[in-house]
């Protein structure tokens, strides 16, 4: 187990290093930090002197070493636009993005498990056919189109819900969040539904196919032959074994949702990380772009490593040493 843990952590560190090289290459080639500092009015000779002084003419490796050292201290440079440390700017926006991811996850869990289990147990009912047909259609509708349609119907035509922004967030136990005020909750509904719309069909299908696989296994047949109550077989024996693969895929998909928040935030002008990133790209705010790449990479690496470790812990058949894999 310890070897597995070490191997996974080592792999995570290597991946993070690769990401940091990529991020640094972006920073090194995009934009000129000197111009941001001193403007256009400095002569070429002075510029060259300043470049030397700042170490901008050093070899790549040396510059990268400095970058890495600063990054490890949490310093990813200052955003050109906000004139503040880029990492701080991003972490400020992390909250709103996580609010969306959280809401969407709740919707997905609440709907996908019952629907997936039902469609697996009753494969031939009309309701199952409707659910499966809807999930086929749902997979084919891009998130941003769902988001726009929701806005058009519920915000513009019916006027029930606000069409953009995060509203006035509430305070609770010193934490500010849109979940703690009525206005904030009203603003959350549409973006969360939109964000969950692409993953929900995927999860219904996943739960269904895993459940079908479990239901056709020997021990379920045996339980049936033994005369156990069907409900007990389904919900106690089968569901438990269905959740294992669902959890692992699910953990990874929650990371994936970060990508879809960019689209959702763009439609709803939700002040989160994705929206910030798009603005940074348009302003060529290099430190902010770099910091975003590193930060998002970090989220992915951490969720994946955790999911892998969890899976290794729960499932005894996983080859922990990775030999022969």
């Amino acid at each position, binding site marked *: 187990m310890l070897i597995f843990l070490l191997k996974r952590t080592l792999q995570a560190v290597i991946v993070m290093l690769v990401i940091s090289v990529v991020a640094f290459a972006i920073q090194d080639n995009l934009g000129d930090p000197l111009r941001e500092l001193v403007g256009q009015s400095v002569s070429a000779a002075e510029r060259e002197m300043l470049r030397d002084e700042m170490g901008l003419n050093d070899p790549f490796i040396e510059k990268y070493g400095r970058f890495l050292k600063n990054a490890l201290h949490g310093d990813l440079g200052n955003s050109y636009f906000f004139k503040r440390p880029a990492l701080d700017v991003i972490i400020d926006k992390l909250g709103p993005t996580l609010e969306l991811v959280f809401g969407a996850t709740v919707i997905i869990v609440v709907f996908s498990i019952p629907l997936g289990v039902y469609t697996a147990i009753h494969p031939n009912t009309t309701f199952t056919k409707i659910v499966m047909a809807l999930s086929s259609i749902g997979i084919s509708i891009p998130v941003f189109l769902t988001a726009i349609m929701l806005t058009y119907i519920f915000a513009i035509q019916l006027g029930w819900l606000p069409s953009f922004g995060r509203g006035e967030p509430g305070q609770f136990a010193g934490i500010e969040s849109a979940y703690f005020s009525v206005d904030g909750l009203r603003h959350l509904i549409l973006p969360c539904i939109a964000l969950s719309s692409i993953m929900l069909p995927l999860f219904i299908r996943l739960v269904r196919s895993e459940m079908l696989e479990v239901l056709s296994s020997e021990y379920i047949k045996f339980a049936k032959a033994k005369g156990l109550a069907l409900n007990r077989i389904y919900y106690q024996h089968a569901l438990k074994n269905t959740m294992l693969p669902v959890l692992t895929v699910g953990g990874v998909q929650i990371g994936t949702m970060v*990508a879809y928040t960019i689209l959702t935030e763009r439609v709803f002008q939700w002040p989160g990380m994705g929206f910030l990133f798009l603005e940074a790209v348009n302003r060529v705010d290099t430190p902010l772009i770099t910091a975003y790449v590193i930060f998002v990479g970090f989220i992915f690496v951490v969720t994946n490593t955790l999911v892998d470790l969890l899976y290794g812990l729960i499932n005894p058949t996983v080859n922990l040493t990775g030999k022969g894999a």
Partner: protein
Amino acid sequence: MAAIPSAAPGRWQRFRESDLVYHFKRDKVAMFSFALFLTFLLLALFAPWIAPTDPYDKMSIDIMDSEIPPVWMDDGDPRFLLGTDEQGRDILSTILYGSRLSLTIGFLAVGLQLFLGIIIGMTAGYFGGRIDSFLMRLADVQLSFSTLMVAIIISAVFKAAFGGEFFSRYAVIMLIVVIGVAEWPQYARTIRASVLAEKEKEYVEAARVIGFKSGRIMFRHILPNCLSPILVISTVQVANAIMSEAALSFLGLGLPVDQPSLGALINTGFEFIFSGRWWILLFPGLVLVALVLVINLLGDWLRDVFNPRIYKG
């Protein structure tokens, strides 16, 4: 489809009597999806001859015709069946040209994925050992990032690095490369899994005993036997690529306004939906959904028919 009827008549005969065609004739959803897909394909292919106007031709656009609703509404104009957008372009024409671009990017990006996937997957599966574990780790790592995320970041960096103008001029090539590179691991894994299964079979052994070189065994003997899983994921991948392209264009990281794909059209329409001009967005949106849906349905059907050993990930 799998066999192209341009070959010898014997082959056409074999194709007509194959399982694929047998199942196809008995599945209404598959037949309907295929018919619709073919229609989209033909419409896109012949867009320049079918479209009422040429949306790239600035001379034929009249700003006075802008934002006209579809024909069946009160202010409709019989010249513009589905209405016009904010520049006075005929929506039907922009959709036809747009789906042409979306499909082109979709197919070429998948072609690139296939190329990378075959080379990497075959190498990993056939040679095994260290090369295999290195390549598959690489695939794992890249897959652990959302492919959409990778595509967004690469194109964002391209755009910031080369500037908006350069980016829009080469947008089509950029998108193909970005989407192609972001999704190769899917193919590589599937192909590797099939190669591993095929490698153990006797015909490969026989070919090796005859003394054929690795390259010949890989591409002439093993590859043809891996075709059915490749075909299945290819359909899904084309749908994914079209979706990714639409998402990137919607974010302003894809095709520019004067050369719109379906995603770019939706992006334009988004600005006008708040003022109630829904037709600028709705029609390209519907076409995009319909296109992706039929490709996905075809993919589902193919998977059920072949039931291949797709790497579950």
